[in-house]
């Protein structure tokens, strides 16, 4: 008999979107307020793990064909390169630059170099969390 997970699937579809969007919010809230790449990344990893658990792995792999190994490498490179850009201006590694810009509709927005750095951290955290969970899950004993 085929087991039916209607409740789980329906709830997951809604809840995972809430978690995913909250993780993006946390990511942008970061570096001056609570939030940032690490927490946002963990939360996004949580949402993705929920998807993997409630639907089966093969289906999610088809929908999200991401190689998490590459994601870790990419995240590290982004984070390091963001730190390195201060060398161009003759400042020490990891020096942060920021300024305020007027954007249409959004008003004053702060743009900082901490944001791409956080993006790197975000990718690394999502990659590491999912890679370790999926590796254990795929382990056939």
């Amino acid at each position, binding site marked *: 008999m085929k087991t039916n997970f209607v409740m789980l699937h329906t709830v997951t579809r809604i809840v995972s979107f809430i978690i995913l969007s909250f993780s993006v919010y946390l990511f942008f809230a970061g570096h001056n307020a609570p939030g940032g790449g690490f927490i946002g990344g963990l939360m996004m990893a949580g949402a993705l793990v929920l998807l993997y658990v409630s639907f089966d792995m093969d289906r999610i792999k088809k929908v999200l064909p991401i190689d998490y190994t590459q994601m*870790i*490498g990419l995240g590290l490179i982004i984070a390091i390169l963001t730190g390195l850009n201060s060398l161009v201006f003759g400042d*020490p*590694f990891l020096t942060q630059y920021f300024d305020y810009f007027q954007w249409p509709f959004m008003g004053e927005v702060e743009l900082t170099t901490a944001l791409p750095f956080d993006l790197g951290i975000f990718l690394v955290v999502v990659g590491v969390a999912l890679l370790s969970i999926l590796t254990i899950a795929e382990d056939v004993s």
Partner: protein
Amino acid sequence: MSNLLLLPVLVPFLAGAVLILLRNHPLIQRVSSAVIMTVMLLISIQLLYTITTGGILTVELGNWSPPFGIVLVGDMFASMMVLLTSIVGLACLFFSFQTMARIREKFFFYPFYFFLLTGVNGSFLTGDLFNLFVFFEVMLISSFILIVFGGTPYQLRESYKYVVINVFASGLFLVAIAFIYGATGTLNMAHIAVQVAEMEQQGVINVAAILLLIVFGMKGALFPLYFWLPKSYYGPPAAIAALFGGLLTKVGIYAIIRTFTLIFVHDTAFTHNIILALAGLTMFFGVLGAVSQFDFKRILSYHIISQVGYMVMGLGLFTPLALAGAIYYIAHHIIVKSALFLFAGATQKITGTTDLKKMSGLLKTHPALAWLFFISAISLAGIPPLSGFFSKFALILSGVEEGRYIIVAVSLLVGLLTLFSMMKIFIYVFWGGPSLKRSDYAHIKLLPLLAPIIPLVALTITLGLFAEPIFVFSEGVAAEILDPSIYIDAVLEE
């Protein structure tokens, strides 16, 4: 402020990240890691030259000034260690091209190799106690992965112990840092040194000092915390064992020397006498282990322990001559020990075993290997005119001058037993009738195996023949670390 100081940490870090993306292209990985390692060697030569001629370099990360932000500090001692790291890293990398199983390369060997070097170089260059902890962790996590490389049951069993002991040591390290932060209110090493000098070193500071000694002693394999080392270094492939044997314990020793010359220098009657006693016991029990073993790699692993004792002995005596000897000894040891482990790997590749009793007669079939090994072996044992002699000579001379006759007697005895066990290897492996038929080894080309080792052997000969300028350099390093105010001023003045 100079960003040159950052490159030994950043270059391998970025290289490791890029190499993760290239995991399915072994050839590109090999070529690019060779190029990067060569670049790192050039960078570290340039760094040592700049610092020797121009004085201590510092970088304030993120432009936060010390003691609030993290600083990287490059003095002569640190940059010398960075240079040695690059030399050994290059030799082991080229050796791994010859011996590493192709399938293993796909499991992130190169990325973690570079992350390990990131952690090692970072530990040498950092000027912040908590940052030192972080770089230790970077180094340890990479070493956890490299040490199980291949995943044989023996490796998994022994690395489990290695992981447990290191995680425990890291926990203690955090406790010690918390003690120091609670007592002094700062984590910048130069600033801690100032605070400790003002508040007199006693009570809680001494507790923290001994805690740190235990932590670094665990990483550096001091008596009685060396028990994990021989077994866990026996497991991994030769290229990795050589890198670990040459470098990793020396990071612990470096941290001991750094903290006990910069920060905890006001109660030497207490701390440095403990260190001296530990040095003697470490040497003696390490060499006894080596004498009792009949396995190529195990003997070498036990020798690491006994020789770590010599370096710490230099710190325990705490005279300029003894410290110069200890620094010379570190340079000599890193080079020779890596070379010897690589020789063990080469003979293992030829004979298929590391058990001394199963090998014999390699002198007839592989004379070049035999004589190169002989040079390194007697250099390790301290026969003039090779590098081991001059460093031990300085240590023993200083011991006699200070009237510490017990430690002098122990170190002489240990030198003799070292010679004995190295000769044991030589007699078993290279003398006697050939155990191998020509068809067994004909397909293994010797020259590619020896090529990465020859520069190391040449270096130990050079270190011995040009002992005068190198000893003058070691004395310069010793003078610099014996005067903490140079370091403190360089960090806090800017």
